[in-house]
């Protein structure tokens, strides 16, 4: 039985899908991810924190747009886990 898992912003910040502008995104829709794999970065007041997958699974949806501000608790990803 698969279930959906939401990954939300732990605080407000700017959402980045890539480690740097010229590099590819950490993950794409459909990618299989491991637990604790980096999904994105969140920059708050010049501090970058890694957003990691809370569980092993697959990326169902990427809700947040690259380089956009998010509020605390905003939805970033939806994963499908076993």
């Amino acid at each position, binding site marked *: 039985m698969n279930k959906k898992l939401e990954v939300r912003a732990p605080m407000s910040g700017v959402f980045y899908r890539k480690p740097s502008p010229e590099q590819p995104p950490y993950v794409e829709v459909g990618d299989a991810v491991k637990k604790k794999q980096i999904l994105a970065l969140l920059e708050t007041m*010049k501090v970058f924190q890694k957003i990691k997958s809370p569980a092993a699974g697959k990326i169902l949806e990427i809700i947040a747009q690259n380089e956009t501000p998010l509020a605390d608790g905003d939805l970033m990803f939806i994963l499908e886990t076993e």
Partner: protein
Amino acid sequence: MFSKILIANRGEIALRIVRALKELGIKSVAVYSEADTTSLHVRHADESVCIGPPMSAKSYLNVEAVIGAAKRTGAQAIHPGYGYLAENGDFARACKEAGLVFIGPTPENLYLAGDKIKAKAAVNKAGVPIVPSSPDGVRSIDDAVAFASKIQYPVMVKASAGGGGRGIRICPDEDTLREEFAVARAEVKAAFGDDSLYIEKCLVDPRHIEFQVLADESGNVIHLGERECSIQRRYQKLIEEAPSPVMTPQLRQAMGQAAITAAKALNYFNAGTVEFLLDRDDNFYFMEVNARIQVEHPVTEMVTGIDLVKEQIRLADGGRLAYSFDDIPLNGWAIECRINAENPDFNFAPSPGIIKEYRPPAGSGIRLDTHLYQGYELPIYYDSLVAKLIAHDHTRDGAIRILKKALQEFTIQPIKTTIPLYLEIVDDPDFQKGDIHTGYIRKFVTDDDDDDEE
């Protein structure tokens, strides 16, 4: 004298410069991003220009937008503050080419001071001691290991470009060096676009002591005494004071002269800071020159009575230095706490938000440099420094007592700040005795590493 100056910065330093300009009778132009429309520096300046969207790269770091704003408003000069474009040689050059005065060092100074390896070589050649380090950087792990064996462990891996502690790795032995070298290289490449590294001897728990220097167009250089900046976390200063509790007249004379020699070796102009490490045997070593006004400049101002921002402007306008350190009676002791919107109980996580309750401290011996006010929303886009609290008294003990009282009075809610950490520090016997070094903060905080990827 200039009649209008643009300030290419934001936050507390922009407000500090606006105030200096008002006192000098010079019109001020603030620049701001779309995230800073409600900032005090915008409100208090005579004119303001929006230079772009919230992200710094598109606004405060946008050279074209900043220079365009200066040209449109008729400003004759630009004060860069600290951070952003303050130490950008290309920006200083672009100002010159646009017919604007850059209030700071020359482009050549900025290029040289920004290349730490070259700056060290130039200063060392003039006779100022430096921490033993690889003179031309290291190109490979084998080079790094060979050099480390020569100067003996512990060593530090450091980035040739950039700053803020990026890429710095302390390596007590060869195994650690081999492990950390590639990681440090990747980190500095990502941060600065330049992956050159060098190896430096790591002193055990030294003090960080820096000297404020001023230089005029004619090559006159003076120093304004030292600042003790040993209390740091991850190479970011937290508490600074002037003078240093460890300073003697003889050591000040020697270090002050070395600071002047270093500035002259770089053909330096305007205000700058010469940073040294001081070991337990009073040996001092040149580290780098910070070619800007420093965050911690107020402590020097409090004990010397000299307004450093006004001096920067006067020197940029061709003013001469007709005084020296010996002409200045040092007045007491000043201690500054950098109050950051960070949670010290949660690995210093940033804490943005709306300031719903704001009660600043007051009373004799207090200076507060801040852009906060009740109802202000701290943007997510910028640095977490929200206030600099400076206490001044005749003695160090007196300054500590005033600082403690001020910290207790200071309310900034509901965001988290570093005030509780400073309240612990001011009660610490080692701090009270002045027995501090660059590893001192380990008594209070442990760094959580975040490298648990699977």
